């Protein structure tokens, strides 16, 4: 078998595995659901994920040690990760091949020539690592694995599965889908013009592996057979690494196409000897440019700190998933990979837009309006899907504050605040207890306060009574408006009260199982009162799950809304002193 065939099989295998992981990242026990699939494996293999997280946390959380395997492969064999494994690379290669398959050889050779702009990716890498050195992890914006993961999981699956509804019962929604989709589509479609556009010019992981490949033992190069300068090796060169000349080892993605191109002369080899055509394994950027870029990356951190979003000016609208670390630490770990958003069974975890600041772009934030419900009491899927521990893997006991976690109490992600100007019973005298009914915690964080209020135009004069009815003077009531069981007839003076079970224009039908404790006389004043149960929030019981907000009948701007006050992850955001054990 030729190595190029083996490479294509490998690429196909890993792309399929990647897509499979994206598909199965949904809570459930079916074979096509999460179960035990190691869905974070590509993220764990990604060396930039590991390096960025190592810089921000000085640790290797979770199973990021897999990246060491990738680095080792690169140090021995060159950038095989890029050419044989990376699903983003494979996608680009497919699109690039499709778009350019009919082009004449000369044009292909020109397309695959080395361009100085390929140095940009090293600049990108330097900027991102500069930021990471001061604790801000933004590598995920352009790191191909997180980029592909979130794009495929959130946008591609959403677009494909929306009408099919094979994977999700209800169509998934992601607020940032347009921008996410545009970036992904743009990067992939650029390959129609220039093969492997993203890999060659932008990919910071490729840049990192390019730097490492200086040490690689095996490399592509020329042997001592005579080279006839036919440039057929350039024809399908994926890395644009000039195999025909002095090979740029750092750009070579190990596609092995040059070996096939050189079938006649057999000059191209993959061997341990240095290339007879010369080797250029230093990236085409100046040291000064790299240092400047890293400096720029460093500066972004104090620049972002200047917004005050991390301190006094924090945005309480930003509700992080349960188990999220304190914000600064969170931003030091979050890859924006979208795994939590994909796995969330209620779709309530959304990629944040720019409203929470530039550094929070595409990080997870709960939007209780967007999902099918709020954060589920019996679910800890997001923390278990998070590859870097930005969202800690909670157990249900810890999340609900049971067992060993009883003293610590439940994990709170915010607090529900009632808007009395919008709440139906508070503002409009209309009975509604939907938030209380749906509150999932025990005891309920939303409790009710009963109040009887005279309805508008409900002051009446008694005309006469029978055992089960009360006629009123001169009223023209809307028939059966008061038949819902929430309305009562109350006598002025004695305060005696009976439930109304129906009404005509001038007569109230009263609950037959009760009777007046004081007899209403003709001419006495009476009133129609509505029984209201006004919700109140107990901040000690509320965990901020947002089910109440989701269910609120006032379904535009909700009458009860969760914001991040009192979230467990920050002592600064507490509503009351937290006494610690």
């Amino acid at each position: 078998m030729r190595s190029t065939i083996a490479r294509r099989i490998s690429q196909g295998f890993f792309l399929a595995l990647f897509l499979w992981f994206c598909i199965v990242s949904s809570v459930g026990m079916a074979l096509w659901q999460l179960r035990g699939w190691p869905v974070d494996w590509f993220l764990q293999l990604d060396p930039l994920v590991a390096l960025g997280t190592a810089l921000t946390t000085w640790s290797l959380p979770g199973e990021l040690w897999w990246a060491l395997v990738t680095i080792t492969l690169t140090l021995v064999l060159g950038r095989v990760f890029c050419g044989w494994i990376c699903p983003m690379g494979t996608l680009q290669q497919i699109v690039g091949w499709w778009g350019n398959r009919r082009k004449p050889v000369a044009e292909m050779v020109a397309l695959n020539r080395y361009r100085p702009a390929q140095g940009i990716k090293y600049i990108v890498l330097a900027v991102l690592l500069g930021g990471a050195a001061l604790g801000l992890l933004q590598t995920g914006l352009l790191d191909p694995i997180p980029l592909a993961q979130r794009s495929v999981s959130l946008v591609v699956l959403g677009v494909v599965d929306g009408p099919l509804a094979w994977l999700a019962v209800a169509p998934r929604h992601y607020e940032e889908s347009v921008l996410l989709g545009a970036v992904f589509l743009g990067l992939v479609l650029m390959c129609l013009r220039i093969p492997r556009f993203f890999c060659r010019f932008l990919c910071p992981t490729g840049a990192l592996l390019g730097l490492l490949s200086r040490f690689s033992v095996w490399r592509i190069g020329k042997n001592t057979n005579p080279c006839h300068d036919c440039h057929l090796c350039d024809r399908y060169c994926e890395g644009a690494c000039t195999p025909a000349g002095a090979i740029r080892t750092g750009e070579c993605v190990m596609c092995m196409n040059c070996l096939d191109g050189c079938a006649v002369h057999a000059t191209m080899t993959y061997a341990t000897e240095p290339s007879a055509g010369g080797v250029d394994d230093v990236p085409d950027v100046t040291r000064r440019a790299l240092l400047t870029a890293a400096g720029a990356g460093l500066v972004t951190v104090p620049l972002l700190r200047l917004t005050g979003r991390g301190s006094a000016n924090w945005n309480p609208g930003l509700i992080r998933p349960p188990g999220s670390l304190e914000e600064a630490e969170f931003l030091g770990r979050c890859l924006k990979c979208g795994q939590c958003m994909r796995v969330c069974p209620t779709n309530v975890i959304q990629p944040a837009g720019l409203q929470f600041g530039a550094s929070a772009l595409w990080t997870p934030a709960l939007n209780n309006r967007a999902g099918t419900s709020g954060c589920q009491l019996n679910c800890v899927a997001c923390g278990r899907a998070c590859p870097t521990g930005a969202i800690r893997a909670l157990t249900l006991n810890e999340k609900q504050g049971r067992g060993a976690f009883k003293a610590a109490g439940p994990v709170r992600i915010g607090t529900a605040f009632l808007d009395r100007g919008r709440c139906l019973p508070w503002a409009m005298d209309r009975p509604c207890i939907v938030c209380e009914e749906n509150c999932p915690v025990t005891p309920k964080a939303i409790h009710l306060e009963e109040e009887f209020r005279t309805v508008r135009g409900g002051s009446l004069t008694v005309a006469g009574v029978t055992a089960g009815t009360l006629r009123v003077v001169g009223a023209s009531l809307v028939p059966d408006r008061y038949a819902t069981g929430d309305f009562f007839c109350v006598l002025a003076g004695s305060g005696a009260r009976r439930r109304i079970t129906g009404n005509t224009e001038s007569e109230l039908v009263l609950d037959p199982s009760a009777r007046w404790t004081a007899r209403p006389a003709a001419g006495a004043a009476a009133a129609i009162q509505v029984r209201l149960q006004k919700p109140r929030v107990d901040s000690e019981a509320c965990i901020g799950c947002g089910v109440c907000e989701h269910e609120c009948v006032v379904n535009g701007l909700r009458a009860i809304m969760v914001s991040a006050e009192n979230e467990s992850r920050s002592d600064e955001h507490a509503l009351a002193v937290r006494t610690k054990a």
Partner: protein
Amino acid sequence: MTNGDGGQTRREFLMRSARAAAAVAVTWAGGAWLWRRGRRTGQAPIAAGAVIPNFSVPSAGKRMAIVTGADRLKTVGRALEGVGGISAFIKKGDRVAIKVNAAFATPAMLSATTNPELAAELVRLCLAAGARSVAVLDNPINDAESCFALTGIGEAVRKAGAQVIMPREGLFRRVTLAGGRLIRDWPAFTEPLARADKLIGVTPLKHHSRSGASMTMKNFYGLLGGRRNRFHQDINGIIMELAQLVRPTFVVLDGTTAMMTNGPTGGSLADLKATNTMIVSTDPVAADAFGATVLGNRASDLPYIGRAAAAGAGIADFESLKPMRARV
């Protein structure tokens, strides 16, 4: 597959392999180190945090003086003599920190803040006793610059030779009171104290709607940083813990003009009463216990006094200190 001199090629290959092997080794060693480090720091306990030194002077003993009179400078002078004289506390070369109450940007006349003349007098007395430097500090509720300016404290103490330390972020450290329930991993204005040898608290005698009275123990609330207003939900608990956390050299409770109602801000002269009392004490609990009587309460009306005494922060039965009483 053969190019050039076989020996040279072989040497190059070995060199390159060695470099690659070294890089692999470094990668895995670094990875293992980072991985284990992550495990170790995974559940970091609350750091013990900074500690506030104990500033009390055991050789001076536990003493208290209550002097009546309308002139603060005279009463405080007499009261200090009553507890053994300033030289019993301030030694030559001491760096003294004075915690004033500059909580509000209100004029001195309203007695919501430490009287500037009294603060300045203490500065002069310390310097006269040989102190190397005197630092006056507070972390007020309102903007610090305006507080020190509008209360007159800033100008008065600077003229007397002290330095005013504004609460800059870099001067705060997270402190934890051993055995404490509230003060755990909480930012406090500790750096000026870390650079001081002696600490004096000087505060006006005030009614406080939340805690009953704001006196010498409550004065140290002004050392707390962060969103400390949360502690108002357990005001007695926090005052008790402050009394355990901060052990001053001595405290001065200025009851010359006491705020009897509408504390701690007051705002009207009608809230004030000339009670003409100056208290100096090495024990803030005793000072506050007596202060409560000046406000017309008993010490037992203020839960934090009993709790602080029970926690070992001082003695609530001030009479047992045999306070020196005088009138000037």
